[in-house]
């Protein structure tokens, strides 16, 4: 299971890299979102997939799973959600202001 998830995470990274390297702003945002999902999956895989109970059920449940990776992922999801949202707003404003969503055109020269 861990191997499968790791491979899946690798596939996601590949997709994200492709999207990040494109010139279209929306694609870059999507790429960054996929990138964060890949990291979340990796965190999950690194914590290990053990069968067990939720560690919230009290002291007499048998076989807890490690709750930490899940807590980390939850936090990471919240953060990447915030970042993606801000990135979207910025991209939209940039598109409005500069009239293009092509990064090649947004290169800009230093002597303006």
């Amino acid at each position, binding site marked *: 299971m861990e191997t499968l998830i790791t491979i899946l995470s690798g596939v996601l990274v590949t997709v994200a890299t492709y999207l990040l390297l494109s010139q279209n702003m929306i694609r870059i945002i999507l790429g960054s979102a996929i990138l964060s999902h890949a990291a979340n999956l990796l965190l999950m895989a690194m914590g290990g997939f053990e069968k067990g109970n*939720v560690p*919230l*059920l009290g002291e007499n449940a048998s076989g807890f799973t490690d709750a930490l990776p899940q807590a980390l992922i*939850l936090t990471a999801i*919240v953060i990447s959600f*915030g970042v993606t*949202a*801000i990135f*979207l*707003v910025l991209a*939209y404003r940039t598109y409005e202001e500069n009239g293009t969503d092509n990064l090649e055109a947004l290169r800009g020269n230093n002597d303006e």
Partner: protein
Amino acid sequence: MKSNDVILQAVTKIVVFIILTLAVYLFFSGHNNPGGGFIGGLVLAAAVVLLILAFDVNTMQRALPFDFKVVGALGGFIVIATGFGSLLFDVPFLTQTMGEFDVPFFGEMEFSTVTIFEVGVALAVVGVVVTIILSISKDV
């Protein structure tokens, strides 16, 4: 943009209440089960976003006349304030406590300060999400 969205609007009127109920359910189940303030808040925000989609921003603002930036800030304020509560009792920052109370009609109920914290999280999430959606959707 004028389009015919009678069906969407009719469905939304019903579905929004289902979504809101789900949000409240998720919020309270978060105490001992999967769920909680963040998820509850997201679902709440989804309801608001659905309203914006089905009607429009102005109608939504008339129905829910809040400044969502302030809602978000209020949530953040509550979150940190619960942390400060523990300073008053001279225990480490963010310490939470709980107790069981006998409430008439409902019977034995458990209250904990985490719930207040979660209310803050939910409000912050709703505020931030709706603010962002509004700022993107302003002039489409």
